[in-house]
């Protein structure tokens, strides 16, 4: 009787294990399919339409009708907006992360952490809508920008959106430091701020690098919030308040109108492939940063 039970349960085990393995394998299959499909479709620009890689990447001429697939404008736009976001949101986020890990009393933490969680949950459309209804008019009235749309608006919205990522990862980086480090510094007569800047920050550097890299990843991949406030003009931004476009916003703006098989459509897929490759590079960077820690 027990032997029969044992055999039956062993079969259940094997079946279950098989099912689980398939599920895990599904993850790999998805990633592979993504790379293959987008790789195939995204390289049609080069193989079917015979556009050179250089032209695609570096030519600023992008004309929907004129058959020009240069995406330099959008690459620059993406980089510019991301740079703005990480330059503003990065230090701010790390600072608040330090605050949460080292300074905040319990009552403050119990208000701040749920607030940050809420910020994560707010959909990007809503951030875009907030930017559209609040920020853009503000910029319009207070600066030289004619309509308010542009790099600055997108950059500010994006800075706010990456804050939760940078804050929580920075906080984790500090909390995972051994307490002996802090005690050793304080026992030598350092103030708390000296301990943070001279001992804790250098020790947590790889964790902070991860926080910033993932913040950058979030920024590069953001689409709608930026698209609603950036102005969507196919021009390289001459100033902070000039409207421009990024890789992601361009895809969203022009894909609905792109005919299947057209050069435009192929270019947009190439841009998507570019974004995918950038994401993978960032992942590799994160792994490198983590390896440096151990």
């Amino acid at each position: 009787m027990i032997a029969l039970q044992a055999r039956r349960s062993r079969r259940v085990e094997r079946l279950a294990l098989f099912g689980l393995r398939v599920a895990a394998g599904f993850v790999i299959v998805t990633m592979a399919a993504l790379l293959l499909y987008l790789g195939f479709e995204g390289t049609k620009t080069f193989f079917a339409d015979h556009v050179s890689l250089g032209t695609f990447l570096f030519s600023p001429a992008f004309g929907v009708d004129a058959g020009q697939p240069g995406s330099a404008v959008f690459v620059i736009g993406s980089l510019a907006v991301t740079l703005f976001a990480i330059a503003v949101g990065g230090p701010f986020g790390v600072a608040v992360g330090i605050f949460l890990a080292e300074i905040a009393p319990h009552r403050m933490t119990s208000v701040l952490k749920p607030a940050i969680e809420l910020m994560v949950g707010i959909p990007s459309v809503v951030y875009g809508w907030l930017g559209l209804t609040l920020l853009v008019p503000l910029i319009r009235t207070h600066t030289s920008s004619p309509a308010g749309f542009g790099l600055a608006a997108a950059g500010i919205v994006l800075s706010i959106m990456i804050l939760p990522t940078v804050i929580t990862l920075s906080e984790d980086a500090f909390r995972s430091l051994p307490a002996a480090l802090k005690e050793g510094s304080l026992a030598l007569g350092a103030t708390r701020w000296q301990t943070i800047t001279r001992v804790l920050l250098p020790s947590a550097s790889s964790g902070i690098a991860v926080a910033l890299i993932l913040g950058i990843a979030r920024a590069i991949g953001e689409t709608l919030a930026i698209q609603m406030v950036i102005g969507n003009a196919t021009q390289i931004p001459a100033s902070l308040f000039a409207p421009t476009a990024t890789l992601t916003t361009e895809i969203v703006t022009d894909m609905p109108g792109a005919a299947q098989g057209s050069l435009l459509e192929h270019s947009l897929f190439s841009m998507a492939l570019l974004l995918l490759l950038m994401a993978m590079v960032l992942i590799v960077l994160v792994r490198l940063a983590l390896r440096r820690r151990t």
Partner: protein
Amino acid sequence: MIKSPPVTAELPLDTIENKLVADNVNVFYGAFQAIKHASLTMRGQHVTALIGPSGCGKTTFLRALNRMHDLTPGARVEGSILLDGEDIYGPDADPVVIRHRIGMVFQRANPFPKTIYENAVYGPRIHGERDKRVLDEIAERALRQAALWDEVKDRLNRSALVLSGGQQQRLCIARAVALNPEVILMDEPASALDPIATSKIEDLIGQLTEQFTVVIVTHSMQQAARISDFTAFFHIGEIVEVGPTNQIFTHPKEKRTEDYITGRFG
């Protein structure tokens, strides 16, 4: 190993005999009282050992001596602790200054992830010393005092984390003496080390008393007997007995002390 007659409370408070004096100290963690009415005179340029079973409060008492409990939320210290006659818990007393004069070495070596040189000069640096030449001198002096100089003088710019456990602990001692403190508190400094490294640290402690006052927590009675001049026996948060080490170990006056020393508990 006693160099002068035992300590008496009749001597004025700012003499070397009464370098560090704890007077009726109570330490609370929230509602729990960890140290009860502890009074102890730690004599200048001698080694005072704090012994007792686990959980008896000896580390808690030690950490009160350099105001480390300020860092623990919910911890409270009552009573006074006098350094050269001045209460370190007084209204004018500044913990940063106190920790300059009373240094601490921890149970597990905790060098910073910096170079050996940077570890050694961290203390002087944060207290404002910027002159490279002065820092170099301090580094050499401190590392010599910690009996580490010969082993590391050629690799001062290597990371401190490549050193062995015993070397790291001596680096931490160097880090503490670089500030020229007057008192060095040691919390079981050799408990994580092998016997050879331990004996090196013990020799070092003997040399340190030429300049510093040492208070050391140890769970090893043999260690206390080897290196200390005076011993205080702690039990459940109280100081049961204190006296010259020789006397504590050969003719303890309290039954609890005798029981502990003969291994009946702890």
